[in-house]
């Protein structure tokens, strides 16, 4: 299970100070701090797909980066527990328990997928047969046998995304954190990824993912969190949110909730 409590992240941004038009250049732009993630509390359990929904700039990626141990929070904690309910505290063990995937987690272009998986397997401490076995299984499941030995720089977008999924699968993590995994993919590749998420859920893994595609979230997610300006504005099952807003799909529900929270 992964849980965050009161998570905050402070960033700096430049802003033109008010009433300083025409003054010297030095004073025109002021640096100020703001909370990209503002006291967010989330939990995701085993066998659950949890969706993080919100427009660009809402703070989804920052939140997921903190949960993926790539950024340290300004305030608050990320708690990760193992099967027995004990907290995992060591940073490398936390990273080993999380499979993190985003648009920015690219793969080494000069490696083939097979070489990449071997490198990962060695890093996770698997032996040779184990690496061989797992790689073959992953290639079969993701239908990658045709391009497993090609260099990653030669792969298409969909093939690359499947290679990224393969990367996450190799470590067999407890928690998947996927930042817009279906963004910009063709129907076949996107379906492969949705299938992958469902399978992991059935295996009892925790899947946490962010998306813009509300139709996809409606059928896939057990629960969703809606984020606006770094704050959670709504949470619950898709059905409950639709009921609460008296709508029949998540997209309309989203608009209603956002309008109530102050307009999109």
């Amino acid at each position: 299970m992964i849980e965050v409590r009161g998570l905050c992240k402070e960033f700096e941004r430049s802003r033109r100070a008010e009433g300083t038009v025409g003054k010297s250049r030095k004073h025109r732009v002021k640096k100020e701090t703001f909370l990209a993630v503002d006291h967010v509390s989330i939990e995701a359990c085993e066998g659950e797909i949890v969706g993080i929904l919100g427009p660009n700039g809402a703070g989804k990626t920052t939140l997921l980066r903190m949960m993926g141990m790539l950024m340290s929070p300004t305030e608050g904690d990320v708690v990760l527990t193992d099967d027995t309910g004990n907290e995992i505290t060591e940073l490398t063990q936390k990273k080993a328990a999380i499979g993190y995937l985003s648009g920015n987690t690219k793969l080494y272009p000069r490696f083939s997928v097979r070489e990449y998986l071997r490198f990962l397997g060695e890093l996770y401490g698997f032996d040779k047969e184990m690496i061989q076995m797992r790689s073959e299984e992953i290639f079969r499941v993701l239908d990658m046998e045709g391009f497993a030995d090609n260099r990653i720089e030669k792969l298409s977008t969909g093939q690359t995304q499947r290679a990224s999924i393969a990367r996450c699968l190799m470590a067999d993590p407890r928690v998947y954190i996927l930042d817009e995994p279906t963004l910009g993919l063709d129907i076949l590749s996107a379906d492969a990824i949705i299938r992958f998420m469902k399978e992991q859920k059935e295996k009892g893994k925790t899947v946490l993912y962010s998306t813009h595609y509300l139709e996809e979230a409606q059928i896939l997610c057990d629960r969703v969190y809606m984020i606006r300006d770094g704050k959670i504005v709504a949470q619950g099952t898709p059905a409950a949110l639709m009921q609460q807003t008296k709508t029949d799909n998540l997209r309309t529900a989203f608009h209603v909730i956002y309008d109530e929270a102050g307009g999109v």
Partner: protein
Amino acid sequence: MMKKIGILIRKEMLDILRDKKTLIMMILVPIVLYPLLIIGMTFVLNSVMSASEETSYTVAFDKEYADTVADLRELMAQNPEEFEEDVEFLAMDGKGTSAVADATLRLEEETDGRLRVEIAYDSTNMNSAHVCQMLVDVMEAYRQKLVAEGLAELDLDERFLYPVICTTVDEVSEAESFGVSIGGSIGMMLIVMILMGALYPAIDTTAGEKERGTLETLLTLPVTNFQMIFSKFVSVAIIACVTALLSLVSLAGSVLFLIFGVAGDMVMEFGFSAGTMLGALPMLFVTMIVTALLSSALCMCFCVFAKSFKEANNYVTPLLLVVMIASMAGMLPSVELDQKTVLIPIVNVSLMMKQVLSQQFSFALAGVANLVNLCVSILIIWFLAKMYDSENILFADGFRSFRLFVKRSDVKEGTVPDNGDVMLGVTVLFLLLIYVGSVASARLGFWGTAVSQLMILAVPLLLVWYMKSDVRSLFSLNAPRKRSVPGSILLYMGTYCLIMVLSVALMALFPESMENVELAFSPMTEQPFVFILLVVALMPAIGEEILFRGLMFGSIRANWLNRHPKEPAVKAAVYAILISAAVFGVFHMSLVKFFTTFLLGALFAYIVYKTGSIYVTMGLHFVNNAVSMMAMKYPEAVGKVLPFLMEEELSVGEIVGLLLAGVLLMALGLALLEGKRKKAG
């Protein structure tokens, strides 16, 4: 831990080696470029020289003096070995300059019967310069011939004119002159080759990874920052080593090809025997590896901040310039590898190469130089791994650990300078002291020291002004509690006893360095004692305390506390004490003084930590310097009061006594200082 590093190194190597650009830089450039350059240059040089040998020259002269010129031609014909060139003499009217001739002889008979000769030539034209030199020699031979004829008329011989025969003999060994003439440039070439070898992979594994977006993936894997940085560092160093080796082999191959192939006699004139250098080879090999480590660390230090190849290239340009200039040290005739220069990275390698090639090789100094460079590389890597967590590397806009790069109007009140700012300040100060300080000392003598001291005070003050820091808490500008003063004094006295024993031991180990120290201070003793006290005791007591115990100790401690809020505060103090003391030690630019100043620095930082007041250590620092200045100025008087202070060798009894006294005083002082804490708490 090691296994993961091994896996990561293998990955980095594979990634680097599959990049065509790296391979070109690594293999093609050294293997093809150097031979092409060297052999090509030699061929061009040879062809130019042989072309000039075959040319015939023309010399114009005033036809009025045709008889004199006829004498000259006869003289040249008599000595065909000396004047072998084919010279054609061209008669012309008047004393103008001929456009077609390589040189013009202007002859003029003076009223006293002597012949005045003016040789007009063009110094930018090789043929003209050559024929001019030949004409000078011809004229000299002509003069001697006339002198001999004149003497013969008077029944005298040469002994009358030249009763003294004076010649010069250059006694420097051929190897030495070889080392001095080209050892420096070979050292520079080697350093630059290694740096070039490190540069590209350093950019590729840091900024390149960031640009390709693979770094974020790497950071999701279960590896620590140290493992990541260290494996990158080792991979870059391996590539740098291989590049350097290839360059060396290709360079050596080209030179051998020249010796045995094309221009044997030309190169052999240096009389350089490779056999005598074999002994230095293992050390050379070690030096190359250590230099590769150092270059890799330096390159990575800059590239880690960059977000893209382009940015990284911009960052390393100043580094390249500095390293190039530093590696030219070996070309300076009077700079040698000694106690001081051995401490400057890069410069020490350059000087060592000069030593090796002139076959005056000191294993001890070479060892120290390598040790220094190794330590610097490890420090840089450790620093990188500590300071730049994944967030800083990935998401920050460049130099985030330098708050100095923020506009002052955006700096918040009470900002503590970051460790990067402090190090930058100290580096700038160090350069100022080396360049401005040494010029000031040369121009102003004793008062130049005062200028240096003012700079030491000015740099931290400027820094905290820019940062708008809370000076009172950062510099510990608090009045000490009365009861903590005696404890501090006792502790200082105890430490001083230990330092005395230590410096006697160091003096025995490095006898020559102590003489250097005395030499450096000797011009000062001529000044009135008040001035000495002011410049050598009072100013350092304020400036160095503000810099090391104020800015450095204060900032490092505050930053550490800020970054590790959950850890005990004592740890922050320990880090800050050790680091500030180490920099204080290095700052004194002497291998021997490092140990004693380190101890003193650690002691002072500890006292500031315990008493919360910098005034106490300012007082102690003043007393410390004043006492040693007194010992310099009035050795006899001090010798009467404190005899052991003046001795250069201590008896066993004195050593035991000093050690005992030291430990006792320290224990007493510690008990007083620590005890106070408990009561107050």
